[in-house]
């Protein structure tokens, strides 16, 4: 699989479908696993990492769901290719940074992937569009069961799956939803909501997970603990809290509409206008404006772009995506010009022919 081809498609998890997709952009569940016989990645010798890589690869080939996946060794990828995978939420910055023998196994539709030799030997991940915690858990769980037939996982009866960092020991599971909360931000209730989230044992992060910034009113909410609770209980509790937050967001939205409908519509249309007519634009600005337009969609304002197109805007206008699209490395200044052009074409009348066939 060539990444330039991959760049032209959009992962299925970005297609804007699924429950509550006007508020929840995507759902992710990942499991951390290690092989019993090998020291953890950061202390393993190169030949041990090679052993892990080949064991995982051979186990994956025997797993029906993953049999068609592509193997992408990080070493063989250019920095832009790796950055592309980070922007796509498929690998961590950590995996991208390192020159050691690490890789990604990826299904063409991006719904399921396995990072090999990241902080843990395996990081299995399921991504789904919209709010779909249970089905994401089920798909990653099924793959884990399959791989567990073949691979000898480090596991203790008492502490569960043993991971390099004790914060993941136990289930090794991190479930998260990427949620868009503009009304709570605008009505200044977000602080209280976030505080409530952390009090019930969940964590809040930015657009790209751990250590990333909050951008465009997108928040990533995930479970914090991995011991003392089964995977299903963790999923259920994140599900409950997320439902509640969606409800808060919807109530705040109604409040806003009652008090300031015209001002909000103005903000939405100005954002849309800027996206459609700008000539130089940064990816940060695209994210913020796309956030405002997405807000407009949730208010059922007619005549804007659809959710899928907005998801495309968020992901495909990022630096590595722009460069793969252009087919060469670009300076930031060039990127900002090209990005404006790309956005105009994507939001133009004939979206399907213009940008996508290029």
């Amino acid at each position, binding site marked *: 699989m060539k990444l330039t081809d991959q760049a032209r498609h959009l992962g299925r998890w970005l297609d804007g479908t699924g429950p509550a997709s006007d508020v929840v952009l995507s759902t992710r569940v990942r499991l951390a696993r290690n092989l019993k016989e090998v020291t953890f990645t950061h202390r393993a010798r190169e030949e041990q990492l090679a052993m892990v890589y080949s064991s995982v690869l051979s186990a994956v080939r025997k797993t029906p769901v993953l049999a068609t996946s592509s193997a992408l060794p990080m070493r063989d990828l250019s920095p832009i290719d790796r950055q592309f995978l980070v922007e796509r939420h498929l690998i961590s910055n950590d995996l991208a940074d390192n020159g050691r023998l690490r890789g990604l196994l990826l299904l063409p539709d991006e719904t399921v992937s396995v990072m090999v030799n990241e902080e843990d030997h395996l990081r299995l991940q399921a991504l789904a569009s919209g709010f779909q915690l249970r089905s994401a858990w089920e798909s990653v769980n099924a793959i884990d069961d399959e791989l567990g*037939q073949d691979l000898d996982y480090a*596991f203790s009866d*008492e502490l569960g799956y*043993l991971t390099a*960092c*004790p914060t993941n020991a*136990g289930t090794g599971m991190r479930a998260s939803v990427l949620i868009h909360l503009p009304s709570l931000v605008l009505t200044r209730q977000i602080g209280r909501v976030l505080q409530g989230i952390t009090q019930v*044992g969940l964590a809040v992060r930015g657009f790209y997970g751990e*250590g990333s910034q909050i951008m465009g009113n997108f928040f990533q909410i995930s479970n914090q603990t991995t011991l*003392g609770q089964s995977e299903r209980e963790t999923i259920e509790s994140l599900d409950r809290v997320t439902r509640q937050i969606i409800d808060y967001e919807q109530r705040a939205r109604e409040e806003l509409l009652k008090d300031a409908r015209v001002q909000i519509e103005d903000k939405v249309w100005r954002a849309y206008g800027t996206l459609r007519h700008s000539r130089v634009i940064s990816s940060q600005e695209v994210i913020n404006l796309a956030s405002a337009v997405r807000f407009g969609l949730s208010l059922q304002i007619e005549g804007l772009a659809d959710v899928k197109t907005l998801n495309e805007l968020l992901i495909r206008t990022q630096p590595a995506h722009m460069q793969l699209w252009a087919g060469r490395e670009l300076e930031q200044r060039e990127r900002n010009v090209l990005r404006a052009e790309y956005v105009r074409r994507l939001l133009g009348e004939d979206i399907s022919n213009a940008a996508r066939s290029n």
Partner: protein
Amino acid sequence: MQCQLCGKRPAVVHFTEIVNNKKSDHHVCEKCAEERGYHVPLLKSKFSVGDLLAGMVDQSGQGEETKVGRVQCPRCNLVYSEFKESGRLGCSECYTTFRAQLRPLLRRIHGSTKHVGKAPARDSERVALRREVQRLHEDLQRAIEHEEFENAAAIRDRIRAMEAQTSGPAAGGTS
């Protein structure tokens, strides 16, 4: 708005506290919030998990600092002080080697030191059996407390039968 505690710096942390149904609003600066141990989400997002962990570990190692720091894992040679610095263990065996130090740490992170989730396909039968035995032990205790001796005897028989099945080399510890 000024910080309610020091009155000098601007208040950046705002929260509502409810104690015995009495609600009070607080507005404090970052420094005072930190000193009082108020948890501030996102304010300190630049910290890595490693830093936070290292901080947590430090509290637990007090007193016998040097002795504990030199404990070494026989399999991967990781020394406990290295874990304190990086927040990463070296291998699965480390969980056994540093068991005494890790238990309080895990409790602080997760509020528990007991895995109740799934087990690998290969171990799942054995784990299910072990959990069942554990549950029966609790039932037995309850039966005895309620003086239901006949019931207790029946439970004890079931436990013995099940333990006979599990008494392989794989019981407990890091399998």
